[in-house]
């Protein structure tokens, strides 16, 4: 019964948190640009508006994929926040991302197709680092389970500083922030319109937005795992670290111009290779 409550709680509260974070993101971004910016709750207004609007379609297939994507992203969130297996969570998240990409292909329009291609490229760029972060956590704590990792005597980040920095680097992809927002930017006007989401409207688009809220929570939860340990005080520290990382990403978003895909792929792979290899090898030396 408690478990059920926990699951329902996560499913309901995670998007609230994600939406709130997105709202903060938009306000902070506006302030960084010297504007007043939208109200804090603007993301919720947007989604509620989209739900109340008409939903058009370009073919019967394309909406299916975003709903499935949402379901698997929710699955990931529940798994992560209830202390489950971090690697399985990542696999489920990848499954969700792949369905989202397929949604772009199924729309079969120029902008959504190229958005899908770029999204796939981004997944290829960040996937090694995400996997290695999971394996790094496993290497330190001998368990893939979040509940074991956060119950260990020391925070994982002490052993995995390189992996953590690499992970922060690819967070920019996951949060769809400049310089790595090739496939779909937060900001409306870009050369491929809105990438994969171009052909979605109304409820379908609202689903995509909510999916992104969940993803934000997932990403921050992964950051959290690096810091939390058996010491209760560390959880406060972990929340603080998450906020710092989130703020850092907003600053990066506003200070960098978008790069070409070549740079995105190469830099992500090189950063992953150097930082994680060095970190894990040093770790294996002491083991």
């Amino acid at each position, binding site marked *: 019964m408690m478990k059920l409550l926990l699951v329902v709680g996560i499913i309901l509260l995670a998007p609230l948190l994600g939406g709130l974070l997105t709202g903060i993101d*938009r306000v902070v971004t*506006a302030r960084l*640009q*010297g*504007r*007043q*910016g*939208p*109200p804090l709750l*603007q993301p919720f*207004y*947007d989604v*509620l*508006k989209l739900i*109340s*609007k*008409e*939903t*058009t379609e370009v073919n019967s297939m394309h909406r299916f994929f975003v709903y499935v994507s949402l379901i698997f992203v929710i699955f990931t969130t529940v798994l992560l926040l209830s202390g489950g297996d971090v690697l399985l969570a990542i696999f489920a998240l990848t499954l969700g991302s792949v369905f989202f990409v397929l949604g772009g292909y199924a729309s079969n329009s120029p902008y959504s197709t190229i958005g899908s291609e770029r999204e796939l490229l981004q997944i290829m760029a960040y996937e090694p680092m995400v996997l290695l972060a999971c394996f790094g956590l496993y290497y330190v704590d001998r368990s893939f389970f979040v509940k074991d990792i956060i119950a260990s005597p020391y925070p994982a980040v002490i052993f995995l500083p390189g992996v953590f920095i690499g992970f922060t680097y690819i967070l920019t992809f996951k949060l769809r922030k400049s310089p790595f927002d090739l496939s779909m930017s937060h900001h*409306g*006007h*870009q050369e491929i*319109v*809105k990438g994969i*989401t*171009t*052909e*979605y*409207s*109304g409820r379908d*688009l609202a689903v995509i937005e909510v999916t992104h809220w969940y993803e934000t929570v997932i990403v921050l939860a992964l950051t959290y795992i690096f810091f939390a340990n058996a010491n209760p005080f560390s959880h406060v520290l972990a929340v603080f670290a998450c906020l710092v990382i989130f703020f850092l990403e907003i600053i990066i978003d506003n200070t960098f111009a978008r790069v070409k895909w070549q740079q995105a792929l190469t830099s992500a792979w090189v950063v992953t290779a150097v930082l994680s290899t060095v970190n894990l090898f040093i770790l294996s030396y002491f083991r």
Partner: protein
Amino acid sequence: MSFIKKSPWILHYDGSSCNGCDIEVLACLTPLYDVERFGVINTGNPKHADILLITGSVNEQNIPVVKQLYEQMADPKVVVAVGICANSGGIFAECYNVVGGVDKVIPVDVYVPGCAARPEAIIDGVVQGIGVLEEKRARAKKKIPAKQQNGV
């Protein structure tokens, strides 16, 4: 409570404007005017937009484009004609290829005069557009047929 008033997303289309009004539209996004205060986002995509902002007159070449963009927008939707050219064709009205104002092709809900229209006027037009949007939504809820809705 209606959320459509709080988050009007805009599609900006340049008919055959001299770019004067376009620059003013963009000026609305700058820190000085900052339309994002009202939740406005410049989407650049008809599927996402609630308000179609058209600058410049319509000419023979872009009639199908304007019609199609309007068609692709999800209901409820509002058209705001910005600048005198979009209202009536302006000084280009007599050109051989110009059809006239936007209302010759699609129903227009709000007319924003000016050459070029000032940012304040444009924002005012958008805000009025939001009002129309809400009205349309309310009417659609009561299931009043679409034809009356779009009556100009």
